[in-house]
């Protein structure tokens, strides 16, 4: 009932709470408080408040662990009051923009799926020391981590975990029809072609949603396609490989999917699998978990495979990245940095709480057996993913024009257009036009 009491608008509690919140968070706007803060020695974090904004994790148990165990224990040890707020990952950019405009808000802010580090870096605290120290301590960062947080040679964010979108398939259906496990995209297509007439199509989102951005990039990159060169200067979309990937997607759609996929959002493939219809989906393990929780019969026969290989045997899994940043306006950067270090150090505990959802960016933390996925026979294969992980812009960096490309769903729209019957060349021309237009605008600015 404390919540309810807190919410009462009695003037006295309001003022006290307002004062605490203001003083604690070090919100700008009161010169007196700023002066008080300035007097504190920077290393002195005892008695401060640390405010963290992050998403609502797919696995509620993770939030419980994070909010009432991890932060609480660390806070008690260091004499810091930690407060964690949650909003959905897709809405984090709006909140971030609001905090930027206000010049006040949380100390630590998380980005999921849309990584805005490079866009905001001038307003973010330099976390190079934390990044380097964590790398040293835990066997180095995976190669693709750097591009998420680097700007002008410094690091402005700490990647904590990424989310894999592996191949999840119905072994019973595959076995009954003499199909080989979907270890290549070609086998996956054959399976869908065989099983669709039997009432078990597949589906990948041909729509404007986060999973569409991720899944079609996995296909594109596994086919040998590329988005940007490592310098971030040149757009590499216009290629033979992209055309092959587009043709493949068209065939996959025609032979193995229904028109439903045009309406799908991030949750639809979960339901498709859980309802027992899908022969396979390419989705985060929330699909696997949803099935576990809602349809035990289907779950029994649901298996996870290695990322399917493209025609030349290449495997790339485009993952949803998650990065933690510290605002420059934060008055409590010291505590923020120490907490981030602690967060990285306790990664394994977090991976357990997330039921194997969170995957580490640090090589030392990716050693087998990893928590949860190392002990679950069906999930063990996920431990082999770290070397093939990629993010938006691959093999180039995740720079701001790519962010706009992602937010405008240019790449999934290319696949959608082809699936809807436009010619590959027309779509290629349209897509390149969009990429060029967006890049040109960012150069001009």
């Amino acid at each position, binding site marked *: 009932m404390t919540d309810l009491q807190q919410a009462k608008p009695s003037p006295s509690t309001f003022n006290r709470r307002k004062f605490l919140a203001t003083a604690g968070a070090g919100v700008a706007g009161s010169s007196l408080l700023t002066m008080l803060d300035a007097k504190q020695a920077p290393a002195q974090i005892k008695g401060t408040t640390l405010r963290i904004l992050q998403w609502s994790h797919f696995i509620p148990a993770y939030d419980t662990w994070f909010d009432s165990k991890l932060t609480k224990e660390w806070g008690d040890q260091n004499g810091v009051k930690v407060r964690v707020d949650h909003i959905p990952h897709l809405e984090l*950019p*709006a909140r*971030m*923009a609001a905090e*930027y405009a206000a010049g006040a808000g949380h100390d630590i802010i998380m980005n999921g799926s*849309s990584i*805005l580090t*490079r*866009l*905001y*870096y*001038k*307003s973010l605290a330099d976390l190079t020391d934390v990044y380097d120290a964590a790398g040293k301590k835990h066997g180095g960062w995976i190669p693709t981590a750097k591009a998420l947080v680097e700007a002008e040679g410094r690091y402005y964010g700490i990647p904590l975990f990424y989310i894999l979108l592996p191949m999840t398939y119905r072994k019973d259906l595959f076995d009954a029809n003499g199909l080989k496990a979907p270890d290549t995209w070609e086998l996956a297509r054959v399976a869908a072609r065989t099983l669709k007439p039997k*009432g078990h*199509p597949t589906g990948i989102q*041909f*729509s*404007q*949603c986060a999973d569409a951005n991720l899944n079609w990039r996995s296909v594109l990159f596994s086919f040998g396609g590329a988005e940007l060169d490592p310098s971030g200067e040149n757009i590499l979309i216009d290629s033979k490989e992209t055309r092959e990937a587009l043709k493949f997607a068209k065939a996959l759609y025609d032979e193995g999917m*229904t*028109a*439903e*996929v*045009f*309406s*799908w*959002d991030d949750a*639809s493939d979960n*339901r*498709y699998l859980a*309802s027992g*219809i899908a022969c396979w989906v390419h989705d985060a393990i929330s699909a696997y978990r949803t099935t576990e929780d809602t349809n035990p019969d289907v779950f029994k026969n649901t298996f996870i495979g290695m990322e399917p290989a493209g025609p030349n045997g290449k495997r790339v899994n485009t993952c949803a990245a998650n990065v933690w940043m510290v605002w420059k306006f934060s008055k409590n950067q010291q505590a923020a940095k120490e907490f981030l270090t602690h967060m990285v150090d306790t990664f394994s505990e977090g991976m357990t709480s997330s039921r194997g959802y969170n995957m580490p960016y640090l090589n030392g933390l990716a050693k087998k057996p990893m928590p949860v996925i190392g002990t679950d026979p069906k999930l063990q294969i996920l431990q082999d993913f770290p070397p093939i992980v990629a993010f938006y812009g691959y093999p180039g960096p995740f720079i*701001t024009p790519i*962010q*706009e490309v*992602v*937010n*405008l*769903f240019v790449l999934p*729209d290319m696949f*959608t*257009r082809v699936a*809807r019957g436009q010619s590959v060349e027309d779509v290629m021309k349209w897509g390149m036009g969009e990429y060029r*237009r967006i890049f040109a*605008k960012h150069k*001009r*600015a």
Partner: protein
Amino acid sequence: MTPASLQGGGPEPTARAAVVSVAVPLRSRLMFQSQTSRRLAFGYLLLAPAALYVLLLVGAPFVFSLYLAVSDANVGDPVATFIGLENFRSALEMDVFWIALQNSVIFLVVAAIFKSILGTSLAFLLLQDFPGKKLIRGLVVIPFTLPIAISVLAWKWMYDSQFSVINWVLSRVGLIGQYGTDSWPIWLGDPKLALLACIAVNVWRTFPFSAIVLLAGFTSVPLEVLDAAKVDGCSFFQRFRHVVAPMIFPILMIGFLFDTVFTLSDLSVVYLLTQGGPANASKILPVLAYQIGIQAGNLGRGAAIALFLVPLLAPAMFLFLRNLKRREY
């Protein structure tokens, strides 16, 4: 009793002032002038809180967003420079901008047509007397009172490509085929249906409101006037056209104006249902502005897209409201 009050319903200031000035000597006229200034002072005092509130919290931010629209501001760069109409130019260069503009207009017009048809018929029915009227009225206003951000989610579930209850019913009735066949509509995935599906949610939510506004209009027509017209031998349609319509016109227009403004700036329905997909088929201006301005961080271009219609709408609205107010007297 003063001459003014005897005038009985003569609120015209000049007329009354004239009466006063004729009836009273010079000393009183001076008094009247001080009374005028007192009246004005009182008036502005009463106006001040609302005016200040709006000026500070809408006016000032509005000026700021105008500034954004002509600058190269992005979310991360504190220093923005003036770039003139560049943001508007680059908006015009985008295919998707034109699609969004077109969709916004379609959205507005189609939704308005359905809302007025449904709203008018519902209002006519609710005008009658019958047992259980209050209950039924209570039921039909529910869509309007549910928080929009949540009721859209219920629709998302009803439009689900697989578990759509709408399709389930249509399929059982035999209007569409089985799940998995081509005639099973994919409400949010078919470019021809996606925008319509979003419009349907907007109509569902607001037609009860249209009905109430119209009901208010009908109730405002005095029965005697109608009876008089009936006695004069006017037919139902004549009565409607010459008596009812002119009287409810201002109400209709105000309702229409509010609805237009809210519909044009509302992003929640489309954003939560389709994000503007598939392949931009249901993209509308506010969603595009949000995706470019906020999610991708290009404040300047986002502001330009969001404000694009203002120069077109503002003068239209101004003239409209002026005219409307004239009619009221």
